[in-house]
């Protein structure tokens, strides 16, 4: 008994040793900066450069100014709209993909993976060309007689929305796919045998069983969409101002770091709320099927 206990202790010591790099790195380079961000958000901005160690709530009060409030609202609106569209397009896609026969399914997964691995900037640039005034889209629509003047979609809100949906769709597809793929279809059959219609069986069985995948997809869409300022930057010009854009501007141009920190804390709180909601809904701690 005693030797067994000793052995166990020795074993856990080597495991402790193995996990030390992760623990140290995490504390120094993840926890440290996060804590510093929270502290920074309560400090006062110095006259010209840097910060003064003077406690204040002003940075948070400043967020309530209409300009910044509007950017927060616009970010939330864009994130929600993006997530809803991504769900509506991505869920059926992942579902149908999982039901394809083996060979075609492999091919389909690969076809989804290629854009996913392709640099997001390349894909954004493609949209820039397509949406540009008098670009391919405008010419095609005008040639078909659908519109008679160029739409000039580049540098508008719909362009940003399209870019967001496009960039985040693969995450949803792959999460839903992995959830549907490992689903036990006999449960659906059982529901059908017991008299449930196709729709009812889908809603009560399939949807419930694939909820973790769907929720993972929602998280993987919603969280990044709050911060992808460069999509709004490139496709929206300066017309769509997101909270991410404001943070970047405050950091790099205005050099008001405490204010940028306060904005980040708020943004972090909003995304954490989403993740807590996820855990409540699915009852799980891990993101299912996260790639």
């Amino acid at each position, binding site marked *: 008994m005693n030797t067994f206990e000793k052995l166990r202790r020795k*074993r856990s010591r080597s495991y402790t040793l193995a996990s030390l790099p992760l623990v140290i790195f995490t504390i120094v380079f993840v926890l440290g900066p996060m804590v510093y961000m929270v502290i920074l958000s309560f400090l006062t901005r110095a006259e010209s450069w840097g910060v003064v160690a003077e406690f204040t709530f002003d940075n948070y009060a400043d967020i309530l100014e209409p300009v910044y409030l509007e950017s927060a609202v616009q970010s939330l609106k864009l994130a929600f709209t993006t997530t809803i569209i991504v769900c509506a397009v991505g869920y059926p896609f992942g579902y149908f993909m999982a039901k394809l026969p083996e060979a075609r399914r492999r091919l389909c997964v690969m076809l989804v993976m*290629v854009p996913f691995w392709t640099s997001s900037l390349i894909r954004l640039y493609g949209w820039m060309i397509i949406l540009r005034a008098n670009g391919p889209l405008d010419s095609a629509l005008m040639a078909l007689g659908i519109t008679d003047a160029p739409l000039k979609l580049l540098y508008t809100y719909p362009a940003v929305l399209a870019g967001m949906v496009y960039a985040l769709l693969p995450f949803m597809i792959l999460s839903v796919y992995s959830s549907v793929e490992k689903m036990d279809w006999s449960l659906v059959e059982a529901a059908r045998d017991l008299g449930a219609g196709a729709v009812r069986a889908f809603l009560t069985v399939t949807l419930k069983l694939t909820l973790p995948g769907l929720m993972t997809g929602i998280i993987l869409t919603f969280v990044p969409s709050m911060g992808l300022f460069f999509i709004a930057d490139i496709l929206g010009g300066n017309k769509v101002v997101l909270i991410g854009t404001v943070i970047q501007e405050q950091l790099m141009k205005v050099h008001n770091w405490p204010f940028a920190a306060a904005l980040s804390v708020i943004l972090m709180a909003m995304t954490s709320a989403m993740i807590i909601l996820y855990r409540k809904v699915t009852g799980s701690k891990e993101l299912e099927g996260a790639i």
Partner: protein
Amino acid sequence: MKRRFRASSVYLLAVLALMYLPIVVVIVYSFNSSDLSSVWGGFTLDWYRELFRDRAMGEALRNTLVLGVLSSLSAAIIGTLGAVGLPRSRIVGKGAVEYIAMLPMMTPEIILGMVSLAFFSLLALPFGMLTLFLSHTAFCIPYVYMQVKARLIGLDPSLTEAARDLGAGESRAFFDITLPLIMPAISSGMLLAFAMSIDDVVISVFMTGASVNTLPIKIYTMLKTGVTPKINALCTLMFAATILVVVAVSLAGRRKTKR
């Protein structure tokens, strides 16, 4: 039944077509001799020639690759050791450590960029490859950790127990049994981390100093300020490289499952 299947195929094809549309457009325009993207002026390879002459571009590419390899490699080491060790260690608050280590995957990138910028300037670190490397490693670790952890949970514990019963020491059992079994998870996590690193814009924007450029940053600035058709050629080459990697990986995966 058969008709419904066909309708779903049409849907899949339509979405896939939309996914590839912008990429196809970029490729087509990379051979366009007119430098106005709205006009087709005939086939040319000039943009590729001009691209290869651009030395700054070559340096940005080298930086990107070096950064991707270094940060995904160190993430693989730190993440794997952590995923194996942490759950069985006697560290106080290991649940909290795990949660914080996974945070970079669950926070918007801009926050990571912001906090790293503030923190590294507090430490007075010079901005450049070092800060890029540290921040990239931080957001690469979760990808490896999650993959390895999931794989370890699915592992049959009797395998290592058998090895230990047969007299293998702690490290011998790890290197001979556990490591080969979790290798696929390590490599797929690392590949994912590498892809994230070489494609990162948001965090890198804050981490690059005045002197260092990565390819995504360079493209980003070009897209914002002024585009030359050279960028079409660059994007086409990057896309070709991506396809090669994806095909190679999926072929390797298929051979493994067949065996």
